[in-house]
Structures are given as structure tokens and as C-alpha cells.
């Protein structure tokens, strides 16, 4: 996958994106001149500490924010609105608490007017893909954090999106569950390949998941500092020397900016 960039058209392209928010009279500059292209079925991780603008970048690609300058493109078309061709997974899960697992997952097809029987079948497939078989009738408050996020992933996947956007999805989980969910993420991604943009502040998670890692500078406005190619075979091993080397390299080079 490494050398196809020039041949294939990029799936997602960010051209000269910057973003500022107005806070009263003050301009709060969050992102500066981001240029990034993401290939089809690539797993790209955007890595940066808190307050580096990484979530803002994700929300621009989602179409939830408009960039102040520049544009984001999906399959060559400018992104102007949120839409079901991009599936999003939130850090705070943001499930619908009044819906069961099934009700949450089938929401996308329901909004598109897919008949009940058909959307149930679709949702069932993705509920099983994320390993929640048997929990279809449970409400979100009855689930653990990791299970909630599985629902979040299934809910985004069920729309058959071109791109999956994950915004620090495992930030609220304990370390043990987090490792497990990272493995699950790779398993799900390898079962049904999608272009993935995964935002995190965790270097180990980035190295475990990413085909490429985009590191943002650790202060506002967020700028791209460096892109790392991760050429480790999957499934990756957290204790593999090559894994640890890359982890050390990124850690050292990141610390310089903090």
C-alpha cells in the first residue's frame, strides 16, 4: 500500500486547511495550513496531545465545522455538510440512551427509510461483527464503557460509510479494556476494510493501529509536524522490538515540542 499514493486518487484530501474560532473579539487559532491526503482503505492515525486541534480537523472532515481557509475533499468532492458517507465514533460514545443497542445501530438505515425488516438484518450483522450478539435489547446504561463504544462503532459501520472517523474513541476506557478494544478495532477493520481516520493522544495506540501516523505539534494552532509510515506486520505486538523502537522514536521527537 506504500507506493500507490501517486497512482490512485486520494480518498480524503485536506488542502491548506486552517481554522479559527471567534471568542468575542478574540480570534482563537486552532489549525494552521493542514495538507493531508488519505488513501483508500488506509488506517491513518492523527496523533497529538490535548489542545492540538486534532478533533477540530476530524470535525472538519466530518462536515460539522467549516474550515476558515482551504477545503476538505471526499472522493474529489468538497465536504460541506455532515452526512452518512462518513461514519463517526465519539469519545463520549454519544449513544441514544432511550434506544436499545438494536435501536441505536439501526438508526442510520432508519433515517434513510430502509424498511424495518431489512434494517434489522443489517444492524444484526454489525452488532455481531462488533461482538455484541445477545445484547440487542440492552439499553446503553446497562453496558460497560467498552461495550458502549462497540455500539458506537457498529452504529457508524452500518451506514456502509466510505470513511470511518474515530475521535479518541477509547480515551475513557481503562488500560486493559483499551488494549482489547484496539485489537478488536484491527479485527473489525480487517473484516470490513474502510478508510479510517483515528484521532488519539496515545502514542502506543497510534503505533499499534496506524498504517501512517500524522503527528501534530503540541500547541495551538495545530500544525503537521511529521508523518511516520508504520511498516510493521499485523497483528502487531506491543513488545516487539521494532514496535518499541518506533514508539521511542515518536515519543522522543514529540517531547521536543512540548
Amino acid at each position, binding site marked *: 500500500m506504500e507506493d500507490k499514493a501517486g497512482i490512485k486518487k486520494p480518498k480524503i484530501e485536506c488542502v491548506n486547511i486552517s481554522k479559527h474560532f471567534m471568542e468575542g473579539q478574540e480570534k482563537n487559532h486552532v489549525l494552521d495550513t493542514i495538507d493531508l491526503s488519505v488513501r483508500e482503505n488506509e488506517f491513518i492515525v492523527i496523533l497529538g496531545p490535548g489542545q492540538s486541534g486534532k478533533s477540530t480537523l476530524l470535525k472538519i472532515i466530518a462536515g*460539522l465545522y467549516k474550515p476558515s481557509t482551504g477545503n476538505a475533499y471526499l472522493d474529489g468532492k468538497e465536504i460541506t455538510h455532515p452526512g452518512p458517507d462518513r461514519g463517526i465514533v465519539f469519545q463520549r460514545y454519544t449513544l441514544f440512551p*432511550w434506544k436499545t443497542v438494536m435501536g441505536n445501530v439501526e438508526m442510520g438505515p432508519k*433515517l*434513510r427509510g430502509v424498511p424495518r425488516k431489512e434494517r434489522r438484518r443489517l444492524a444484526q450483522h454489525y452488532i455481531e461483527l462488533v461482538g455484541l450478539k445477545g445484547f440487542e435489547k440492552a439499553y446503553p446504561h446497562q453496558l460497560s464503557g467498552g461495550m458502549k463504544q462497540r455500539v458506537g462503532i457498529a452504529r457508524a459501520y452500518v451506514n456502509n460509510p466510505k470513511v470511518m472517523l474515530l475521535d479518541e474513541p477509547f480515551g475513557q476506557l481503562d488500560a486493559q479494556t483499551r488494549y482489547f478494544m484496539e485489537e478488536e478495532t484491527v479485527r473489525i477493520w480487517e473484516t470490513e476494510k474502510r478508510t479510517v481516520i483515528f484521532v488519539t493522544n496515545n502514542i502506543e495506540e497510534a503505533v499499534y493501529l496506524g498504517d501512517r501516523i500524522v503527528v501534530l505539534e503540541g500547541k495551538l494552532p495545530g500544525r503537521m509536524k511529521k508523518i511516520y509510515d508504520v511498516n510493521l506486520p499485523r497483528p502487531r505486538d506491543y513488545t516487539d522490538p521494532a514496535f518499541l523502537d518506533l514508539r521511542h522514536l515518536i515519543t522522543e521527537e514529540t517531547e521536543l515540542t512540548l
Partner: protein
Amino acid sequence: MSNEALVNNSPVTEKPRTFGEFISALFKNVYVLYAISIISFLLIWDVLSVMQVLGRFLPRPVEVLYQLYDMLLNPLAGKTLMMHLWFSLRRVLIAFAIAVVIGVPIGLAMGFSPYFNAFVKPVFDLFKPMPPIAWISLAILWFGIGEMSKIFIIIIGAVVPCIINSYNGIRLVDPEMYDCIRMLGGNKRQEVIEVTFPAAFPAIFAGIQISLSMAWTTVLAAELVGAREGMGFIIITGMNQSKPAMIISGMVVIALTAWAISMLVTHAERWVCPWKTKLE
């Protein structure tokens, strides 16, 4: 860690072995403590009454019980206790229904439209802190001392929480829910149906709950002035005839009814918002 270690470390599961342990376990039982609480309250009340600490106007608990029994069988002003209770309840239910029908849509409209909110809010804020009882004299001048004036006062009291909670319920929906439904492909109408209403529903329901207890409080005030039936009438008659037992038995019935209503509403909530109350 073995299972044995777990059991040995948890004295809670052990059966009491000696008489002393049995007694101490007994006093840690909440239901036993509830019973002790009620019995000692009645005892203190009885002692205060017998010693005439508050003069002769504090009846003994048994006298109140007898008065209740008497009113259940023998009519007061032509009506038994149950009929008086029914008159009060009917006023509450009519006024409460009207208050919900008026208040919830106004609150929703305020939540949805900032322009409507700006238009309504100054007047609403002016009337909001006014206690409904302050309207009694005016209501009697306008509507006479019949049903109309009482229902009017109850509506005034009950409509406020309906408006406030509906408004806040809409306003305080987590904005990320909207992001989420938009990303899933929802249009404006679907946002309202799939997110706004269900997300605001618990707050609106809580408003309705408060409104019902407000209505029950207000009906008594309304009945204290110029009523010929109802729980407020029983209390005011007790005062006029110097029968404190009648007053207290009226109060007891009022409290029991309020408690029954709140139990009903709690069950209704469990039924309509299962996602809210299923665990804990």
C-alpha cells in the same frame, strides 16, 4: 485469591450467632428502623398531647384516628370524607390537565424558537415568582366563589413548572446528539423526532410531576377561601368548630393522597422512560 478468603473477609454474609449479635443485626435493619421511627413519633405526640404542652388543641393520635373513622361514615356538610377528597381531586385533575395542555407547548415553543422565547420571557419572568395564592382575591372577584375561581388558581400554580421544564428540556439537549444524528443522515425533521423530543422527555416529565404536586398544594389554599366541599373545607371547618382532630385528620388524608399520587407518577415514569430507571 481463593473463594474461602473472600467469604472470611465479608462479615456481612455471616449469620448472627449470639443473642447480642442478633440484637445488633436487628437495629441495622432499615425496616426495623422505619418502624421505630414511626412508633416513637406517635409516642412523643401522644405524650405531648396528654401533658397538654400545646394547651388543649393537640388531640391524641387515637382521637385523630376516631375522627377519620367518623368522617368516613358520617357526612360533614352533606358529604363524607371520600366525597370531599373526590371534590379536591377533581379540581386538581381538571386544572392540572389544562395547565399541561397550555404549559408544555409554550415551553416547547420557547425552547425551539429564540424569537418566541424573547417575546414571551419578560412577561413570564414577571409572573413566575408570584405565588398562586396571591391570585385568590382577584380570582374570586373575577369568577365568583364557584369552581372556576379555584381551577383558575390551580392552573396558575401548575402551569409554571410545565413551562420551565419543557423550555429547559429542549435547551439542554447535548449538542453532540445533534452532530451524531446529522452524521447518520438525519434531516431537520428527523433531528426533532429522533433526538430533541426523546432527549427532552425526562425533563418535561419531571416538570409535569412538579406541576401535579403544585396543583395539590394550591387546591388546599383555594379551598380555604369560600369552599363548601373539599379537603381545604374540612380543615377550615375544623378550625371554625375548634376541632383540632378534624384539622389533623384532614392533613393526614392530604399527605397520604400526595404520597399515593407521587407513587403513581414514579411508576408511570418507569413505564414511559425505561432507559432512565432500569438500573438504579
